[in-house]
């Protein structure tokens, strides 16, 4: 009887350990199995690459960084697809006179990152020069092992 009880305890302990291991692995998968700070650094690097490409009108780099399903909403509430945005940049319809972004914050959800920030870049588009400070949200999604910009929206800060 005592022998059976000991055996049962060992089986139960083994089951419990297996269960905890499965839970732990599941949690790691949900968190992307990677420290949040590392993800933030990866996204920041892509964002900086995008900043450079925008200023240099490097459409090839932007083609790689932008998701094919990109949704881009500018400060005038106009919505653009990836093709429209790249065509405007390639044709010189978007012109940056200065570039300044700051105050980044990140929320990491596995392979999706919500990045917010503030910009006061001076940019000309459709004949208008925009100098108004604005808040933006960038949604980065990891697809095919690369972080890609899936959505961008900017809103002027009216009280400044």
């Amino acid at each position, binding site marked *: 009887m005592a022998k059976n009880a000991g055996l049962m305890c060992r089986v*139960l302990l083994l089951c419990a350990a297996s269960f905890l291991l499965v839970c732990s692995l599941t949690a790691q998968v949900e968190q992307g199995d990677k420290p949040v700070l590392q993800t933030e650094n990866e996204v920041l690097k892509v964002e900086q690459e995008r900043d450079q490409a925008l200023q240099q009108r490097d459409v090839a780099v932007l083609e790689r960084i932008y998701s094919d399903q990109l*949704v881009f909403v500018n400060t005038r509430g106009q919505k653009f697809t990836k093709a429209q945005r790249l065509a405007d940049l390639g044709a010189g319809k978007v012109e940056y006179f200065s570039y300044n972004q700051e105050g980044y914050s990140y*929320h990491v959800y596995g392979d999706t990152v*919500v990045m917010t920030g503030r910009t006061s870049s001076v940019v000309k588009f459709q004949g208008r020069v925009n100098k108004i400070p604005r*808040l933006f949200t960038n949604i980065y999604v990891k697809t095919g092992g690369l972080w890609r910009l899936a959505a961008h929206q900017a809103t002027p800060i009216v009280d400044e």
Partner: protein
Amino acid sequence: MTKLRVAALLATMALGVIRGATAQGAAKHESDAEIQKAILAIDNERYEAMQKRDMAAMDRLHADGLVFINTKGRMLNKAEYLEEIRSGNLKFLSVETDDYTFCIYGDTVIMSGRAKSVVEYHGVVNKRPRRFTSVFIRMQGQWRLVAHQATLIADE
């Protein structure tokens, strides 16, 4: 008897693992149309909760890490946004949205649209059309809003 108990325990655990795997499999086989329908239902629920000031529903439908940027370029976290609703500082007098697009990346959905809702914010009524982007992420089986930004449409 002991062997029966151990067998029952193992069977229960195995069933749990199978159920989990089945749930994940089902999620993967959801069509885009089904996901869009689920997101629209959640968004409607969100608007109803805002109009009724149902704070329990608001808490459930918004992620703890919510980032909300309104048409004035003001950024609010979840606690601040829910407080605006609870206090009545933000009221939806009518709800009208259209021109939706959905981009689906697994358990992340980016919904873009246009809103013509009439909103009262700190005593000022805003009827101007605006473009919004909402991001929903499925967490533990529940879709939650993680980010929302609205921008006035200048030419309308």
